């Protein structure tokens, strides 16, 4: 049996054991299968030991009731992180004018470091990840505020370097504390950094990087490459984040450029660019669906399917809206939607063992 790569995989294993027990009970009651008491005892003992081991090592939920409580804890810790960040910001806003500048700078530097140390101390003492998540999220927020406020205090020129340091900090915390949200925040920050640097190389203001969606396509491709070839210490948890962000980095710019062809680096007419990205978007989305099925990546299949449908309907609107009777246009759209449902139903039938990732 493959070693458990992380909390997510451990929870999936516990859920499979619970489902197996429920199904076995139903089969026995329906007299489809009958186990001897010894066989039943062996299986139960094995599963009980396995669940205890997983709970001990990964602090997972072994019952449905525990799952519901865990969801509540996740929501509470997220809201708690937001509330604490807000409280800290408003408190310092209140006393800011009373504190000398060196003290202000000292507080800004110390806050993320103190929260980082606190998060590490809590991680070593607690098995539940919620307090660690809360403290590390506030630490990242404190560092973002640190860099932003120092820049404002001294009227510094805005620089993409801020995105670089935020990204590296969030990634360090993500890999140390195994936090997917910090990983996502760090990767997004670094992608924006590279987009900003590339924009400034092209002669424009770096802060306009969002005006050229193509800045993100290469970064999306790099993230997909890293998802495939970078060793991920805790298995599928982090790989999922790289894949999803990579896919969004590739598909969303194509979707935007298929509707807004003037936001491109390509020196062609707007309509030509839109046609290119419509075709590219359909091909990329279809490829995303196919690869998502092969790699059992449900989120990838869903994202790619949504982009495919949007680009397709945009294309149909371009072709038909002007000349076709409106009732016929919507009739055809409805018929295509029904055909797509049938196609996706067939796709769903090809992925019976897909993990819920």
């Amino acid at each position, binding site marked *: 049996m493959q070693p458990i790569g992380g909390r997510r995989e451990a929870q999936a294993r516990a859920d499979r054991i619970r489902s197996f027990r429920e199904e076995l009970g139903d089969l026995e009651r329906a007299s489809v299968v009958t186990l001897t008491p010894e066989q039943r005892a062996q299986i139960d003992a094995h599963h009980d030991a396995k669940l205890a081991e997983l709970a001990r090592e990964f602090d997972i939920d072994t019952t449905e009731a525990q799952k519901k409580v865990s969801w509540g804890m996740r929501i509470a810790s997220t809201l708690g992180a937001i509330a604490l960040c807000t409280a800290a910001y*408003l408190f310092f*806003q*209140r*006393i*800011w*004018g009373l504190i*000398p*500048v060196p003290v202000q*700078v000292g507080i*800004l*530097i110390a806050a*993320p*470091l103190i929260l*980082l140390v606190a998060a*590490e101390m809590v991680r070593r003492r607690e098995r539940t990840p919620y307090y660690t998540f809360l403290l590390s999220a506030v630490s990242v927020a404190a*560092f973002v505020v*640190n*860099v932003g406020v*120092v*820049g*404002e*205090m*001294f*009227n*510094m*020129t*805005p620089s993409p*370097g801020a995105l670089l*340091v935020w990204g*590296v*900090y969030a990634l*360090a*915390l993500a*890999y*140390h504390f195994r936090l997917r949200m910090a990983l996502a925040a760090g990767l997004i920050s670094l992608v924006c950094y590279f987009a900003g640097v590339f*924009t400034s190389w092209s*002669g*424009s*203001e770096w802060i*306009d990087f969002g*005006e*050229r969606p193509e800045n993100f396509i290469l970064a999306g491709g790099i993230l997909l490459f890293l998802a495939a070839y970078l060793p991920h210490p805790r298995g599928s948890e982090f790989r999922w984040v790289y894949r999803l962000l990579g896919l969004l980095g590739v598909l969303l710019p194509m979707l935007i450029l298929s509707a807004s062809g*003037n*936001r*491109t680096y390509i*020196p062609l*007419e*707007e309509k030509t660019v839109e046609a290119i990205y419509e075709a590219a978007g359909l091909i990329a989305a279809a490829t995303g669906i196919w690869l998502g099925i092969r790699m059992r990546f449900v989120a990838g299949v869903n994202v790619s399917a949504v982009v495919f449908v949007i680009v397709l309907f945009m294309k149909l609107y371009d072709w038909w809206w002007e000349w076709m009777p409106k009732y016929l246009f919507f009739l055809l759209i409805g018929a295509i939607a029904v055909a797509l449902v049938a196609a996706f139903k067939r796709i769903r039938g090809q992925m019976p063992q897909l993990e819920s990732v």
Partner: protein
Amino acid sequence: MKSRLLLLAGVVVLVANATALTLVALNRSGRPTNLIELTEREMPIRHRDPESGTVFLQIHFNPGMGEWLGEAKLADLGFDMSVPINSPRAKSHYRRMRTRQVFAVLEYEGTDWRSWLAKQESRIASEINRPIREQLQHERESISRLFAIDAGLNAAALRAKYPDLGKYVIAPCALRVNFWEEINRVRHIQGSIGHFIVNSINVPMAFLSQFRSFGNRPEYNRPPRYRVTVRYGSRYEPEVVEVKTHPAEVR
């Protein structure tokens, strides 16, 4: 490995702040690149936080007539002006252009300002509608006296051309290309200075008490309430070094 990541995070915080503070010190050391006294007309309050008492001022300026920012000048400033203005590709080519960062030269109470003032006085004198005349008078008393007159990629070369630190502000700005077509299909290309790269200036704690009695907005048809001396350092980042609020000093 785990403790190294923690160490990396701590190092990132310290290095980022050390770098920022070093750059601030570098900016504020040595000779200033700009040292100019401006009133509330040129530096109105952008934001004042009632909780913390912090105040941010914003630089207001007039982009001016802009005729000097024609195609030749824009090409010198790095824009790709190779597509002829009447070409079928011109519209998509020029409208697609993003802003570029350049050094802009702004003149305080210079020729452009006096020219504008003369025209405004003429309009006031000929306007018979009282509300409109009052509005024109308000504009005359409140509009910024900083006018953009030149731009370039080399700040030192611009300063050599405009050496008076107290009259000409040379600072990084965003420059954009405007392309438009009139009803008779006559096309135009002209550049315009958009905004200062550092557009918002924090007022140091030492001067905050002088702003305490001010509301965010200047009073209608009243003279400016303060004068600030702004110093730009070697990195062209500004700081407020003096504030005068006494009416005799402000006028």
